[in-house]
């Protein structure tokens, strides 16, 4: 038996890791920018785009975490409430510390936020993995819990940040560094770290393996429980970072903070090319997805075609079309 080489030409056209699935959302993004420009030329103004991208930072940051959770085969519906909860306790903590620590209360509060995010994520993760409860239900439960806690803490009202801290903290949302708004920088850093972890570390591989086929992962000596729990913890930390950026924007946490963000976050992840049933995650696609969502909302306001009553309908239609564009671009 000869002729092996001739009869089976090794198919190695895809040598480098240029992920085509990641290109879809970017195409959708470009299409949206073009449509936006046609609808209203102001759409492409630096201020407007700057605003929109800055605004998308929260969802992007949270969605980076969600990419891990979803990639590992989980789902987290509690992120919106968790933002509110963490923002609330962070503000309370900063206000409490302000008299003694002065402006150092801000970094202290930030550290506290990250710790809180970590614990919230851990709680979610353990309920899902050790408790073996469907993530949808488990995090729907904790969503109610976090939301109720922030409502309780605020008595249903607002927790504003101490006036003495407000000005010093403001630049975290409103400031720029080398001309780029700080939230954009933060989300770029978070996404880069996320991409690094997901694509370049062993943990990233485990995540994808657990999401792609739990049994295979288990047989390969990967701890499904550990991997998935860590994904939820990463999600928690991302939520904390988002909360840290969020607080200076309005200087307060309220029971309506972050309502329905979970849906936006999941949509961003899916538009970004990560399948909800788990498997390979696409961090940069996720970020593009977050920007797409914010752009669609922005376009709704900037265009004059749509009755205020129908905005949600048009958004729904555009999201479906964006998904179709993504599908066909493959």
């Amino acid at each position, binding site marked *: 038996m000869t002729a092996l080489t001739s009869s089976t030409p090794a198919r190695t056209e895809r040598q480098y890791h240029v992920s085509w699935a990641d290109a879809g959302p970017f195409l959708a993004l470009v299409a949206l920018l073009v449509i936006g420009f046609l609808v209203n030329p*102001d759409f492409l103004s630096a201020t407007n785009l700057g*605003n929109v991208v800055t*605004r998308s930072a929260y969802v992007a940051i949270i969605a980076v975490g969600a990419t891990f959770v979803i990639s590992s085969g989980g789902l987290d519906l509690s992120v919106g409430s968790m933002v509110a909860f963490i923002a609330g306790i962070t503000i309370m903590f900063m206000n409490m510390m302000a008299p003694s620590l002065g402006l150092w209360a801000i970094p202290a509060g930030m550290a506290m936020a990250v710790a809180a995010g970590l614990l919230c994520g851990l709680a979610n993760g353990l309920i899902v993995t050790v408790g073996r409860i469907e993530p949808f239900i488990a995090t729907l439960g904790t969503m109610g819990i976090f939301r109720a806690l922030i*409502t309780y803490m605020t*008595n249903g009202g607002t927790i504003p940040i101490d006036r003495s801290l407000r000005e010093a903290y403001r630049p975290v949302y409103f400031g720029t560094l080398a001309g780029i708004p700080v939230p954009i920088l933060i989300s770029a850093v978070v996404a880069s770290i996320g991409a690094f972890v997901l694509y370049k570390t062993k943990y990233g591989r485990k995540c994808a393996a657990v999401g792609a086929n739990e049994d295979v992962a288990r047989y390969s000596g990967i701890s499904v429980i550990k991997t998935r729990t860590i994904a939820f913890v990463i999600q928690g930390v991302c939520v904390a970072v988002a909360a840290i950026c969020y607080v200076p924007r309005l200087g307060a946490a309220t*029971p309506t903070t972050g*309502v329905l963000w979970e849906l936006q976050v999941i949509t961003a992840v899916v538009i970004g090319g990560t399948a909800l049933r788990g498997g390979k995650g696409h961090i940069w696609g996720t970020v593009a997805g977050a920007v797409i969502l914010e752009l669609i909302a922005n376009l709704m*306001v*900037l265009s004059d075609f749509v009755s205020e009553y129908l905005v949600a309908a048009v958004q729904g239609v555009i999201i479906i079309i964006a998904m179709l564009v993504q599908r066909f671009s493959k």
Partner: protein
Amino acid sequence: DKKVVAVSIPAADHGWTAGIVYHAQAAAKEINAAFPDVEVVVKTSPSAADQVSALEDLSASRKLDALVILPYTSEELTQPVKAIKDMGTFITVVDRGLTDASIQDLYLAGDNIAVGTNTAKFMIDKLGGKGDLVVLRGIPTVIDDERIKGFEDTIKGTGLKVLDIQYAHWNSDEAFKLMQDYLAKYPHIDAVWANDDDMLLGVLEAVKQSGRTDIKLALGGNGMKDIVKKVIDGDAMTPVETPYPPSMIKTAIYMTVANLIGQAPVRGTVKLDAPLITQANAKEYYFPDSPF
């Protein structure tokens, strides 16, 4: 035997309803402490359907002597409240009237149309009868509808023009974004009206960030303490406020209890006006301890 007063109100899902819950609970606590033979039970519901459920639950398990209700919507709650009335319960309706006015024994109402009207009047006045406006509205409900109607009816025929009107769901974040977009879309805006103070907070941040100077007025509504404080401080952009005090629920509960234990019956209609809060009278409306 204790007399039972049930209080059915919306869940605290934004600032104003949070104020309602706060005042209702405060009233319940005070009354339960002060009058040993009265029990006030407060129940919140996150939607009209849930409120109907809550009414059924409250009346199924015990006889209610009085019900104080802030209905989600008039249409949907009329029949259920009537059912309770038919069991011989004293009915106090707060804020939203029922479609059948004969059901209520006591009616304590704010005036949402007046909120819109008074704000509009002030704007017409202040802007000299002409100018470009943008409006942020809340969640599609009757409250929102009436406020917008009052406002639009009043500016009709004047030189004030509404450039844009969109929903921001009584949410500061959405209002912030929406205002940013308004600012990007319209190079010149004379005034902004957010029909609720939660949204006004977001609007003010967006205006502040933009550094724009063309916006002369940014008004809200409901009487949130932070905004009333601005009025007290003589803020140029927000010189007035229209109250729609959530404390009306407390008043209503007290009046209802007074009817139960007092000698003289308390019945009829109390209509709260929505007078402009100005720097002159703002202190009366300022409650620094309220969450709202």
